């Protein structure tokens, strides 16, 4: 039941499983995506910081400018490489995200909950539903903000009970994606480590725009929040919330959160 391999080597094996039938080299594109993220994110921070018109705002703007500069520099934009980068960030470049979480439950429980794929929408908020067609194949529906839905069929391509699970979309899907999840015993009897790796490859062409919307939303932070909700459900049976609670406000804050910034 308890697997002997350390989680890191399991993750490496996952990479092999996923890339074995995908000979394309997308490393260059990934790097560019991260640089673009810095560039755009940095630019947004500058604008946001300046808009606040305060000392704290100026600080944010400064951080933003630094990020933007770094993004531009690393991507080669400052060296006249913008054309190459634009090509590499075309819609067919995959986006790869990895996150992990530790859950204070035995591996078999954690694995079983995930393996019942129809449970996934309980904590993956961008997924509307997963229907298991049979033990290997499933049908996924994702909701976009604009009200459009994306659908695809996925197939489990590698399964080791209480160790790992890998899946990939079948041909003809709206959104090419593949995933690999490793379940490993956490050291010091602290339950189970879950390492998730998701790769998205939006198709070029007609679907480009709406798919871009989807994968722009799907960031590292989203995967992190998905895994956090997975942990909440398994450990506590519920997801903590303040949505719907009392306050002297007319309307709820977005995401039950705050408009404030930690930097002021």
């Amino acid at each position, binding site marked *: 039941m308890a697997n002997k391999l350390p989680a890191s080597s399991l993750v490496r094996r996952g990479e092999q499983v996923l890339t074995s039938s995908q000979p394309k080299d997308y490393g260059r594109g990934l790097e560019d995506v991260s640089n673009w993220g810095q560039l755009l994110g940095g630019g947004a921070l500058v604008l946001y910081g300046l808009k606040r018109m305060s000392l704290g705002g100026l600080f944010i703007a400064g951080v933003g400018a630094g990020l933007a500069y770094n993004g531009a520099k690393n991507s080669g934009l400052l060296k006249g490489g913008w054309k190459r980068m634009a090509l590499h960030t075309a819609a067919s470049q995959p986006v790869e995200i990895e996150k992990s979480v530790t859950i204070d439950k035995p591996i078999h429980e954690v694995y079983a909950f995930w393996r019942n794929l129809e449970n996934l929408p309980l904590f993956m908020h961008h997924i509307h539903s997963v229907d298991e067609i049979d033990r290997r194949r499933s049908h996924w529906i994702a909701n976009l903000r604009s009200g459009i839905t994306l659908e695809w069929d996925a197939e489990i391509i590698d399964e080791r009970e209480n160790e790992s699970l890998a899946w990939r979309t079948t041909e003809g899907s709206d959104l090419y994606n593949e995933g690999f999840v490793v379940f490993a015993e956490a050291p010091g009897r602290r339950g189970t480590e879950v390492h998730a790796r998701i790769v998205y490859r939006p198709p070029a062409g007609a679907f480009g725009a709406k798919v871009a919307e989807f994968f722009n939303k799907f960031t590292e932070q989203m995967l992190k929040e998905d895994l956090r909700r997975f942990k909440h459900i398994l*450990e*506590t049976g519920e*997801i*903590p919330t303040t949505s719907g*609670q*009392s*306050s002297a406000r007319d309307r709820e*804050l977005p995401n039950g959160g*705050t408009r404030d*910034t930690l930097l002021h």
Partner: protein
Amino acid sequence: MKALCWYGKQDVRVENVPDPTILNPRDAILRVSLTAICGSDLHLYDGVIPTMETGDILGHEFMGEIVEVGPEVKNLQIGDRVVVPFPLACGHCNFCHTERFSLCDNSNPNAWMAERAFGYSAAGIFGYSHLFGGYAGGQAEYVRVPFADVGPLKIPAGVSNEQALFLSDVLPTGYQAAVDCNIQPGHTVAIWGCGPVGLFAIKSAFMLGAERVIAIDFVPERLAMARHQCGAEVLNLEDDPVLDALKEMTAGRGPDACIDAVGMEAHGLGAIDWYDRAKQSLRLETDRPHALRMAIMACAKGGTLAIPGVYGGLLDKVPLGAAFNKGLTFKMGQTHVQKYMRPLLERIQNGDIDPTFITTHRLPLEDAPDAYEMFQKKEDGCVKVILTP
């Protein structure tokens, strides 16, 4: 229902707001019988804790009667009289399993925010900014209590509402500080701040075997309470050369343990105080750590520094070199109330401590805005305000 709501710096108002409802299966709704203003509420009142929103309901010290329970709350009945710990804890994560409840993994819905500020998120706290979960607080007629099957403690007959109220925060917080001091026979403990937490820390230090406790403050009536009701020797920050006095009182050894029961809005003296206030107002520094600086300098070699006073962010001119070279041990953090409230309830029942001696003002909830102002300015001998909704 009526609730005390935050509107900005030194602007709190009693407003009519919707009654709370059950939102999760492990929730309960409490009709609040008594609630208190905590010294840490003054940090919200003074606007030095970020991520407050207009209309937030304050209050994390409260007790009352269960009026509704969610389907997964099996241990509470409607009508039960309970006191509620200020940090929320799920009871099932690794931190809760190891009784470190205020570090709960699962109770902050805004964990991403706390991760940005602190690297990792600790527990959510009632009525204490969105950084700590944005939960509506208990300075209200009713309050929603998440994880109600873990936190609330039933109050046995013979223990009054007011005695039980202090189990929600200040009594366990003072007690944990004393526990953190690792007090051995013959030890002297010095405590900065004679507010409720400091006063309970004095009592707790004696309960845990301290030989002497020296209390430091500058508010005369608080020093009087420390001396006459808790048995501490006292030093007045404004009149006494505190560091020299502590050294002489301990024949050159220094206090074996120090407790900073003041936190981020300490009152200092002289130029360094102006420096801190200027930086804090410009948001270049979030905390004014006078008490912490003194406690580090005062502490004996190899001593322990316990910090129940709240810190929120970035500190300047902390003499870490002194701490390093004297080999100090630092213990700090929000209180694991769920761990200490049962043994402290027993101490109340067997007469070791009656926490109600700290109460100086009993007022209706409607008077809360005036009470905040009085407490903030330390007027009228105010040490602890209890509000009845």
